[in-house]
């Protein structure tokens, strides 16, 4: 599965996938300090969305997205 190239597309797709199948979705973040790389993944075991970045500004965006996902997890 290929990586998304734009954050906005990834975030939009992630929220859509999550609202379609909230129970099965899991969200994984992988941070590698030496490589300076952050990989995000959201999957429901059918569709897999991935985004890879080396940009510091994406941490802020990750914070926002994880907050949205976390909130919708507990309010489903």
């Amino acid at each position, binding site marked *: 599965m290929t990586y998304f190239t734009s954050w906005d597309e990834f975030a939009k797709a992630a929220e859509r996938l999550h609202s379609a199948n909230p129970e099965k979705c899991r969200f994984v973040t992988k941070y590698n*300090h030496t490589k300076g790389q952050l990989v995000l993944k959201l999957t429901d075991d059918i569709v897999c969305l991935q985004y890879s970045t080396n940009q*510091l500004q994406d941490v802020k965006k990750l914070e926002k997205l994880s907050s949205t996902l976390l909130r919708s997890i507990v309010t489903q």
Partner: protein
Amino acid sequence: MSTVEQHIPNDQFLQKLTAFYRDSKIRGPRSVYVTMKPYDGRTKAVPKGSTFKEGDEVSCIFRAKWGSKKIATEVKAKEVNKFHTQYSAIIIAQMVNLEKRKKTDEEKKKTATKA
């Protein structure tokens, strides 16, 4: 796996997670994984295709893995705001080895012509 996963309290989880991030910079495995997923409190396998029962309180599981070390915690619905505030403080403080800002093509050209 037949063993039931041990959930540690939220604050302990966050402490250990910080240690994972810190240690990954200086020794051992280099990647830290954090997973979040919904959880309905069951500890046994359920038939394929079954869904969460109506009325069950859904909480959120956070799992973190660094090398062979694994930790997990259950975040209750009412703890979510508090937990997320602390969690974001950790990732902002720890995920620091990333590039400040992507140079746009125009800026790249500028520096290229200068040099």
